[in-house]
């Protein structure tokens, strides 16, 4: 699994109300939610995104409500992977269930700036920062979560279990 794209950096403790405010929770449609991604952070934030771009966040990303609309909005906005210092717990589960890949970088997150071009190799556990020339490692995704993701997410997992 590899990704290449330009980064958009947001701060620490970005909550799910910032990712997708409650007034937009009247739909379960991924593309529709994507149009309002980060509307709670800054009006029109999503306009900067080109599909394939990479979201970069600080500590405790996705804190607050359990709304699965948050990872859906990020996917809908065209960002398939998030890098952060750390994640809030419910958001972490939701993201993998929805097919959004999260990588935890700890303090190395500071080595990525807004607008950097990155190339991510998930299996190798490496990020090449093409802008700075640095290579950054990251904690491997737990096997349990990776199996979930590569198996098509939780819906497919339960489908197989129910069929047995």
């Amino acid at each position: 699994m590899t990704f290449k794209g330009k980064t958009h950096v947001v701060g620490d403790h970005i909550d799910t109300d910032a990712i997708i405010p409650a007034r937009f929770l009247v739909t379960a449609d991924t593309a529709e939610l994507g149009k309002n991604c980060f509307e709670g952070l800054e009006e029109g934030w999503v306009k900067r995104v080109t599909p394939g771009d990479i979201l970069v966040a600080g500590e405790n990303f996705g804190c607050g409500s359990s709304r699965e609309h948050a990872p859906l909005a990020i996917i809908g906005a065209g960002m398939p992977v998030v890098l952060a210092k750390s994640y809030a717990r419910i958001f972490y589960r939701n993201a993998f269930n929805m097919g959004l890949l999260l990588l935890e970088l700890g303090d190395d997150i500071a080595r990525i700036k807004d607008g950097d071009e990155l190339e991510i190799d998930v299996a190798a556990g490496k990020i090449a920062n093409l802008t700075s020339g640095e290579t950054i490692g990251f904690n491997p995704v737990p096997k349990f979560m990776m199996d979930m993701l590569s198996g098509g997410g939780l819906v497919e997992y339960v489908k197989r279990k129910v069929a047995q």
Partner: protein
Amino acid sequence: MRQTLAQKILQRHTDQPITADGQIVQCRVSLVLANDITAPLAIKSIRGMGVKKVFDKDKVALVCDHFTPNKDIDSAEQVKVVRDFAREMDITHYYEGGNVGVEHAILPEYGLVGPGDIIVGADSHTCTYGGLGAFATGLGSTDVAAAMALGETWFKVPETIRVNFTGKLPEHVGGKDLILFTIGQTGVAGALYKALEFGGEVIDDLSVEARMTMANMAIEAGGKAGLFAADGKTLEYCRAHGRDGDEPIAADPGAAYWKEMTFDVSSFSPQIACPHLPDNVKPVEEVSDVRVDQVVLGSCTNGRISDLREAAAIIKGRKVAKGVRFIVIPASPGAYSMALDEGLLRIFLDAGAIISPPTCGPCLGGHMGILAGGERCLATTNRNFKGRMGSLKSEVYLAGPAVAAATAVTGFITHPGKL
């Protein structure tokens, strides 16, 4: 192994021996919950899973409480999806209309949650039931859909932070102040992936409703659960709400905690969480010159009958300050009914308050009190994130019911003892 409360409850619901924190275990669940915002996504996932019926129609609760009474066409359509699903699956515990209140207020009142249970809900404040000695935690819609289908879910056994409170609670200081203080100490990520377990003489004396207020905000410290032992008070509460057969449950003495914290509350003041994070906590004296446009009393944190009583006792015979909107939202039909019988609604109305039907309403910026740019609200709710209650340029301060009532009277954040 001497067990923490989290380990003990999880062990009761799995056949895998729990030997250490961090272990991943598959647990049977006692109840699965979703609301009008999260259930439609869960239903979409259940359809995708090809599931024809839920694991147990008596162990699923669907509560339409967030945007109800439906605020617009889109929210009405969402509730319709939930209602149709509840009919199709013959769900016993479907709530909409006169039997609905804020989910975490009504489930304990209807006797659907109790000590030793595992409850998973597609709502982050599901942790509220930890106040009753249950392991309860929020999950996303699809995790909840899987639990509705299979009757089980996976957990990583959490490390536990034990928080002890000693001393004597001063007047006008309660559960909300204790939990705000705790979050101020840990920070909003201080309990990330961990369980918070509360104890000490102050907790022993605290009412079950106040314990639920505290457990409710464990998530605001990043916590997976906020746990309290189930004692005589808990069992009395459960019996009064139609349950029988519940038993006490507590952590083993000498259980291994990741961290222990002890606070003497004797000199505590009412606590205020200032914009824009719940860990930006200060004693009320430090923010007493802050003017407000609106005060909200309600929510899954502080909309129970004990909260309404506490606020009514402060505002009785007084008036809401000119230019301030004081919105009172009983969190459940039960609390509403008791407030009516006890004359509390008369007290609020005479003071010039607005009384709303039970709903989550303004807490999450849904309806019933949305803020304009530049406006400021003091609320007994649980989150003060930027824009949470309306405009990105509005501000929310969090406090307990007594401070809310006193603030409504003066129009400035006020210590109830200073009236």
